[in-house]
C-alpha cells in the first residue's frame, strides 16, 4: 500500500469510528433515562461527529490529490466513481453518505447496538479509555493535520472518559441488578476490544512514517486504566480470550448496514438533495 493510500485509509477509519459511535449515541436523543443524561450523550455524540467532520475533510483532500486511476479504484460506490470520472472533487458529505458498507473502516466495537444503558456505558468506556491514550500519542504525529485534530479531541475525550468511568462505578457498585447488567455488558463487549490494538496494513504503513503508532504498545497502559476503574466499580476483569476483528478491513457485523441504511437513505434516493 503506498503512503498516501495508507494515510487515506487510516484517516477514514478514525473518521468512521467517530461518525458511527456518534450515530449510536445520538440514537439515545429523546430516550435518555433522565434529561441530564440525554444531554450528556448528545453532547458527546456531537464531539464525535465534529471530530469525524474534520477528519473527513482531510480524507477528502488526500483522496482528491491521488492519481485518477487510484481514485477510480478506491471505493466501490458508483456515485463516487461517477464524480471521479467527471473530475469533480469529493467532499466530507460524499464520504459519509455515498460510501458502501465494506468501504467503512470503523472498528466493530462502535457499531454494536445500544441495547441498554449498561451496554452503552461499557462501549463508551472501552472506546473513551482507548481514545485517551490514542489521541495523546496522535497529537505527536508527524502529520500536522492529524496532530492538531488529536490535540483538540484529547480535551473532549477527557470529559467522555470521566462520564463513562463514573457510570461504570455507579452501575457496577450499585444495586445487585445494575452490577449484574454492567458485568454482563463488560463481558460481552470485551471481545470487541482486541481490534482496537491490532495493526492492519494501513496502521503499519503510517506507523513506519511516524504518522501513526504501534497500537499494541498502548494495550498494557489501557488495561491498567480499565482495571483501576473496574476495581473502583467492584467489577471483575474479563479474561482474555478470542477477539472479534475485521471492521478495520471493511468486514463488519450485520449492524453497520442498518446504520448506513438510515444514515444514507436520503442522499442515495435523492442525490444532491439539500435542506
Amino acid at each position: 500500500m503506498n503512503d498516501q493510500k495508507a494515510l487515506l485509509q487510516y484517516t477514514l477509519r478514525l473518521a468512521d469510528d467517530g461518525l458511527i459511535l456518534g450515530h449510536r449515541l445520538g440514537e439515545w436523543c429523546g430516550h435518555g433515562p433522565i434529561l441530564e443524561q440525554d444531554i450528556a450523550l448528545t453532547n458527546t455524540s456531537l464531539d464525535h461527529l465534529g471530530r469525524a467532520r474534520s477528519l473527513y475533510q482531510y480524507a477528502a483532500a488526500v483522496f482528491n490529490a491521488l492519481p485518477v486511476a487510484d481514485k477510480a479504484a478506491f471505493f466501490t460506490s458508483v456515485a463516487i466513481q461517477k464524480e471521479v470520472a467527471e473530475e469533480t472533487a469529493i467532499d466530507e458529505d460524499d464520504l459519509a453518505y455515498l460510501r458502501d458498507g465494506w468501504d467503512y473502516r470503523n472498528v466493530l466495537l462502535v457499531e454494536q447496538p445500544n441495547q441498554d444503558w449498561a451496554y452503552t456505558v461499557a462501549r463508551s468506556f472501552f472506546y473513551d479509555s482507548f481514545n485517551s491514550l490514542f489521541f495523546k500519542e496522535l497529537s505527536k504525529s508527524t502529520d500536522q493535520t492529524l496532530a492538531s485534530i488529536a490535540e483538540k479531541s484529547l480535551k473532549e475525550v477527557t470529559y467522555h472518559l470521566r462520564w463513562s468511568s463514573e457510570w461504570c462505578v455507579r452501575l457496577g457498585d450499585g444495586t445487585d441488578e445494575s452490577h449484574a447488567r454492567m458485568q454482563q455488558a463488560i463481558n460481552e463487549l470485551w471481545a470487541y476490544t482486541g481490534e482496537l490494538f491490532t495493526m492492519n496494513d494501513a496502521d503499519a504503513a503510517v506507523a513506519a512514517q511516524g504518522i501513526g503508532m504501534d497500537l499494541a504498545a498502548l494495550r498494557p497502559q489501557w488495561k491498567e486504566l480499565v482495571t483501576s476503574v473496574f476495581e473502583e466499580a467492584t467489577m471483575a476483569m474479563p479474561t482474555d480470550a478470542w477477539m472479534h476483528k475485521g471492521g478495520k478491513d471493511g468486514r463488519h457485523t450485520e449492524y453497520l448496514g442498518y446504520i448506513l441504511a438510515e444514515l444514507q437513505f436520503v442522499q442515495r434516493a435523492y442525490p444532491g438533495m439539500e435542506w
Partner: protein
Amino acid sequence: MTKEEVLGWLADVTDPEVPALTILDLGIVRDIQISENNEGTTVKVWITPTYSGCPAMDVIAIGIRMALAGHGAHKVEIEQQMSPAWTTDWMTEDGKRKLKEYGIAPPNRKAFQSLGLFEEEVIACPRCGSEDTELVSQFGPTSCKALYKCLTCKEPFEHFKCH
C-alpha cells in the same frame, strides 16, 4: 482598512449561544490578514473552534461576514485553525466578568489537566457567591457548559467549563 479597525468591527460579533460574550472575549479570533490586489481588499480571519462539533461555529462565521460587510469589506475568507487547541485560558478577564453578570459561573482555573479522573472542583454560585454548590452534570445545553446547583440559594446555574 487596518487590522485594528477590523478587530473593532469584530467586537460586535457575539456568540449565538452566550450572547453576553463577543468572539473577542472568547478568544477564538486568532489572526487577521488584510491583502490588496487589483480586485479589491480581501480580509482573512482565522478562528479556532471551541469544541469540535460546536454548531455555533457556522453561525459565528456568518456573523463575521455580516459584520465586515456592514463596514464595506465584502471579500472575506474565514479559516479554521485547530492548533493550538482553544482553551478557556484565552477568555478575557472582561469576558469572565460579563459571563458572571449574565448568570453563568466563569472558568476559574488554568488548564483542565490538573483534575484527577474522579476529582471535582469548587464552583461558586454566580448569583449568591456561595461555594456550597453541587455538580448536576458535566454536560449542559451547549458543549461548553456544565450544570450545577447552589445548595445555599437553591438556584440551578450553568458553569462555563475550564477547557
